[in-house]
């Protein structure tokens, strides 16, 4: 009996071994490989040596990273863009998702149809989304007149909302001579009044398309959460004299906090990695206004053959995702062990 169980246990481990090896090589091994490449002076395709893992090039240590973080203008712009994209995208998806979930939770007729409509963009490729929204938000030019959404706004009498969308090269930032700018100057935070800490307007168009695609997901998560809250709990609050707003404010929303955390992590890692949408919708944009690290990496490696620089960007990207995801994964593992 005992021997039998042991041989089965061995079979079990045998069956999972190929997957372990694959993950070990293709995830961890390759990350290590990229990490090593990021420390080399490797900026030419001709340096790829056949049959060797790495070319015969000098080791430069942290030079690629230092260059990216101190002198590389494009990368600095990309960091700003990613930050703006991530914050606005998360806020947009959480806000819209929660609003729609709460609306749908009011015993709505045809709920399944509304839910289906809000969620369907998730089934579509970012490439399709990019192609369609690029066309919708095309500002038109002097010979075509307004097209897409701008044309629709004009027809609806909302012409004042027309915008240059993703072609807008402007960056909004706190002006140094404004009241807030003066205050920031007085407390030594001058750097906040520069374009480096501004909002590139063009990227908000990409955020709009991404929110269109992903907000249904947060809606679905919140709705599942709302359905998990026992009706008796809300009923009890109503009996105690709470109005509907107070029921949500004090009973429902606090119970949705774990879902918000999951949603922030999922949306956060998607937005840090965003590549397909930028690729198909705008590319780097005017003055790199819609460029992101994931796109820069692709561009510099596969079009410019700057392997080491691309590897360094990839590692920075990986670290930023890991900071977000690893604590979540570990706490997930711990809570399961406890169960």
């Amino acid at each position, binding site marked *: 009996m005992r021997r*039998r*169980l042991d041989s*089965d246990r061995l*079979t*079990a*481990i045998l*069956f*999972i071994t190929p*997957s372990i090896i*694959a*993950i070990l090589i*293709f*995830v961890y091994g390759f*990350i290590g*490989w*990229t990490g090593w490449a990021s420390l080399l002076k490797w900026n030419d395709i001709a340096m*790829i040596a056949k*049959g060797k893992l790495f070319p015969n090039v000098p080791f430069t240590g942290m030079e690629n990273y230092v260059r990216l973080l101190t002198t590389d203008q494009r990368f600095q712009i990309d960091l700003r863009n990613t930050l703006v994209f991530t914050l606005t995208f998360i806020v947009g998806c959480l806000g819209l998702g929660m609003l729609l979930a709460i*609306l749908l939770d009011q015993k709505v007729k045809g709920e399944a149809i*509304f839910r289906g*409509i*809000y969620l369907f963009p998730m*089934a*579509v*490729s*970012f*490439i*399709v989304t*990019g*192609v*369609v929204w690029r*066309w*919708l938000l095309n500002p*038109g030019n002097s010979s075509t*007149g307004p097209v*897409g959404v701008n*044309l629709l706004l004009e*027809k609806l009498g909302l012409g004042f909302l027309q915008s240059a969308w993703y072609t807008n090269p402007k960056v909004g930032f706190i002006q140094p001579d404004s009241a807030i700018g003066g205050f920031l100057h007085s407390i030594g935070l001058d750097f906040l009044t520069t374009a480096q800490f501004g909002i590139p307007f063009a990227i908000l168009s990409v955020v709009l398309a991404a929110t*269109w695609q992903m907000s249904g997901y947060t809606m679905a998560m919140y709705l599942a959460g709302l359905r998990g809250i026992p009706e008796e709990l809300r009923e009890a609050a109503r009996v105690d004299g709470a109005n509907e707003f107070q029921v949500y404010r004090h009973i429902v929303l606090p119970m949705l906090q774990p879902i918000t955390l*999951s949603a922030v992590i999922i949306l956060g890692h998607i937005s840090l990695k965003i*590549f*397909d949408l930028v*690729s*198909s919708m705008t590319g780097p944009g005017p003055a790199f206004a819609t460029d992101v690290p*994931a796109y820069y990496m*692709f561009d510099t*490696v596969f079009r410019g053959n700057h*392997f080491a620089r*691309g*590897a360094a*960007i*990839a590692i920075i990207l*990986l670290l930023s*995702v890991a900071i977000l995801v*690893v604590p979540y*994964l*570990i706490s*997930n*593992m711990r809570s*399961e062990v406890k169960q």
Partner: protein
Amino acid sequence: MKVQITSHTAKRALLYVLLIAAAIFYLLPVYILIVTSLKSYAEVNLATMWSPPSGFHLDSFRQAWLGDPSKGTQGLSSNFYNSLKLAIPATIFSALLGSLNGYVLSKWRFRGSNALFTAILFGMFIPYQSILIPLVQTLQTVSRTTRPWINDLLAWKAPELLSWLPGLVATYIPSYGTIGGLVLVHVIYGIPITTLIFRNYYAGIPDELVEASKIDGASFGGIYRYILFPISMPAFVVVLIWQFTSVWNEFLFATVITNKADVQPITVALNNLAGSFIVEWNVQMAGALLAALPTLLVYILLGRYFMRGLLAGSLKG
């Protein structure tokens, strides 16, 4: 009392107005896709782009599907088939592998299996840029061995009855620039999510069931085959839908690994089509609709399971 009723009605009305406004926002791109791609060429006009078509014209679809020889543009039809040839096998292999992994990690736990599972899960979150350079290099190294096989196969004069065989086999030999290479990549990087879904599903099946079979003398394979596999259908449906959708919609691996037009999946071809200035926007819209159609159909027909896959992505599904 009367005032209360009116205020209740007004609230309900506002609720539906908001719900419908949101629905219009989500459907706007679909409207423009359908309206534009059904117009005849004579009707395609920027000033009337929001107006419905006069009838049911398929010119734009024809051009998006077949291309336009006079402009030298390629249609998307062959890329559509490439995506099918890629997504179907990748999905099936991923599901089988995920099912076995999930079975082991839920019913045959060993010391460190939870940590191992977490280490596997991490692979689902990484930005693929961080493995892209080694991946391409590895596939190119593999190609040096497999490319001659592919060339030999394609050069082989098969008997007429089997003339389709060499091409088919060559398609699936893993290499840089083949669909087989891309299948391999999708199966490997699909391990975390498929393992997760199956493991969570099997964790919900009582251990007693498995323990009892062990005492009855059932083996590792027997328990899987006669007890777990037959009740795995719901998890298989979720994983198959999830993987099919992800692989069909994927772009980064596809654009890096398939460098030739005749093997590119539809996402890459659509991106090229949309980036080319000689292709009119109505053809671009028709192409986008074609690329979206299979996964949209899956969503419409099997939405319930699609939703489960989504929620599984947030770990504690």
